[in-house]
């Protein structure tokens, strides 16, 4: 299949719109050829993860594009940065890391990206619309935009997302196209107690299991008897996008492209049908924790970034209480959500509890944790999934209440009745 370029595409590629666009279009075209696309298409919004400082290469890439005069053509939000711009000094972040991470942030701002610095851009005013063609990076944002909103994006890798934002063009393939958005795998929930479905921990665990089962396929989940909140769907997607490569899921009767099972599959047959029982979920719940024992150094919440609703949920649990002096309590969130939470009086409860807030980034993307942090506890499947590898720590997965009780006790306390066989 030959890739046909428009007149403008060719002009970008020829360098007639500057060297940054030439480099960006070169990358888009090579990827289009690899994908078997017959043409490129426009996008009208982008979310860029390339702004995350990972080392010299990502900084060089960013500064080269910025130096060459690159300017994004569409409204473009930015994912987490490599450093909390205003708060990094409160933690042992190496200054030379901070300096380079800040340079990379500046390079993307120079290119006209909006400094949202969050992995939950769908909870900001840059949230896309149903059907909107966008180029989003960040695995959890991709799956949320596609599944919960019904916007259309491929799984854009770092380094390609900014190229799409600069040129406004992407290969016309994959989840941008109607016919590729149908479900492939039917996942049936069998005899899952409604009480469990109403619990917040159900969603990260189901997501973790769904990601493992689905791989790159599009799962359709049937049998959910409750209506999840946005934050529960956020947790579900983030987990599935971590343990697997899920870019789109459908929940029958809940997500916008799945009013019925038939609609979710566009009347095609599922490639596979899997039944999920309570035993499967209990096994997944156990896998999310790697620590044994009660030792605990840090409780961390907010992957994806804590929302206003989550601050509202947390505040009453903290009121009048204080963390144990030997454990830390940290929430990672965005500037926007923190500002809203502050205005609503919700951050005072966190401070009075002895909790701390990190913005713009998270524990996985900035080297902020001191080496004596060996065991973490979290209600985030994404934090649970990545911490052992990235941070060389052990992790305990629990509910929000478990996390608060453990923070007060100074050791792991879990009410695991819902999850025990």
């Amino acid at each position, binding site marked *: 299949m030959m890739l046909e370029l428009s007149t403008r595409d060719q002009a970008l590629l020829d360098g007639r719109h500057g060297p940054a666009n030439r480099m960006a279009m070169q990358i888009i075209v090579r990827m289009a050829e690899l*994908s078997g696309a017959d043409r490129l298409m426009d996008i009208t919004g982008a979310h860029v993860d390339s702004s995350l400082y*990972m080392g010299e290469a990502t900084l060089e890439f960013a500064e080269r594009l910025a130096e060459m005069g690159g300017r994004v053509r569409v409204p473009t939000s930015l994912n987490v940065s490599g450093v909390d711009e205003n708060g990094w000094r409160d933690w042992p972040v190496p200054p030379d890391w901070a300096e380079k991470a800040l340079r990379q942030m500046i390079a993307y701002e120079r290119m006209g990206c909006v400094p949202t610095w969050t992995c939950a851009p769908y909870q900001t005013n840059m949230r896309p619309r149903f059907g909107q063609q966008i180029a989003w990076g960040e695995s959890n944002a991709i799956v949320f935009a596609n599944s919960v909103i019904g916007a259309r994006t491929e799984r854009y890798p770092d380094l390609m997302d900014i190229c799409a934002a600069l040129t406004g063009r992407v290969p016309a393939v994959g989840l941008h196209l109607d016919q590729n958005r149908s479900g492939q795998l039917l996942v049936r929930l069998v005899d899952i107690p409604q009480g469990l479905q109403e619990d917040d921990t159900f969603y990260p665990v189901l997501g973790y299991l769904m*990601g493992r089962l689905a791989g790159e396929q599009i799962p359709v989940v049937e049998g959910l008897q409750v209506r999840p909140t946005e934050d529960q769907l956020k947790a579900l997607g983030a987990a599935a996008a971590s343990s697997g490569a899920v870019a789109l899921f459908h929940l029958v009767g809940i997500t916008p492209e799945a009013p019925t099972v038939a609609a979710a599959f566009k009347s095609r047959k599922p490639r596979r049908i899997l039944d999920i029982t309570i035993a499967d979920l209990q096994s997944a719940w156990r*896998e999310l924790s790697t620590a044994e024992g009660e030792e605990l150094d840090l409780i961390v919440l907010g992957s994806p970034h804590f929302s206003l609703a989550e601050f509202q949920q947390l505040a009453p649990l903290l009121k009048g209480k204080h963390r144990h002096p030997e454990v830390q309590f940290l929430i990672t969130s965005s500037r926007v959500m923190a500002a809203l939470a502050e205005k609503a009086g919700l951050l005072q409860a966190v401070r009075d509890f002895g909790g701390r807030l990190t913005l713009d980034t998270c524990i996985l993307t900035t080297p902020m944790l001191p080496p004596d942090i060996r065991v973490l506890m979290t209600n985030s499947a994404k934090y649970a999934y990545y911490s*052992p590898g990235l941070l060389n720590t052990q992790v305990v997965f629990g509910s929000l209440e478990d996390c608060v009780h453990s923070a007060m006790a100074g050791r792991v306390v879990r009410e695991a009745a819902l999850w025990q066989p």
Partner: protein
Amino acid sequence: MATVIRGKPVIAGECAGWALVSHEPLSFWGGYHQATGEIIDRRHPLSGEIAAGRILALPHARGSSTTTAVLLEAVRSGAAPLALITTGIDHFLALASVVADEMYGKPIPLVAIRPDELGELKSGDWIELSRTGALRIVSNVPRGGG
């Protein structure tokens, strides 16, 4: 004892090296150490293995979109795999190779094979990869200090 698999050259290149093979997808972010090439996903079967300089065969990348950035950093620090073999075209890994070519002139050869063909590869095989995507696999080669 050599077998030949005719793969599809997604990013063409020529090299020869020791294989590191898994049937479990891997996120390079949180899974591959960009300075040493160690597989650091502690739940992954290849955890602890060093993939730098070896031909890494796996179904596909999973998880984070930052896989690309990690692989690019690994190319820059000399800790990238020698080549990559996947079942189907993995866009994350291919993009890292495209950008590594654009930035440093160092594309990572990437070959796509069928899932059943992945089943024919084992860690410790010696693989010769040609620009056509053909893989010549020699099994059970004694590694004297390799």
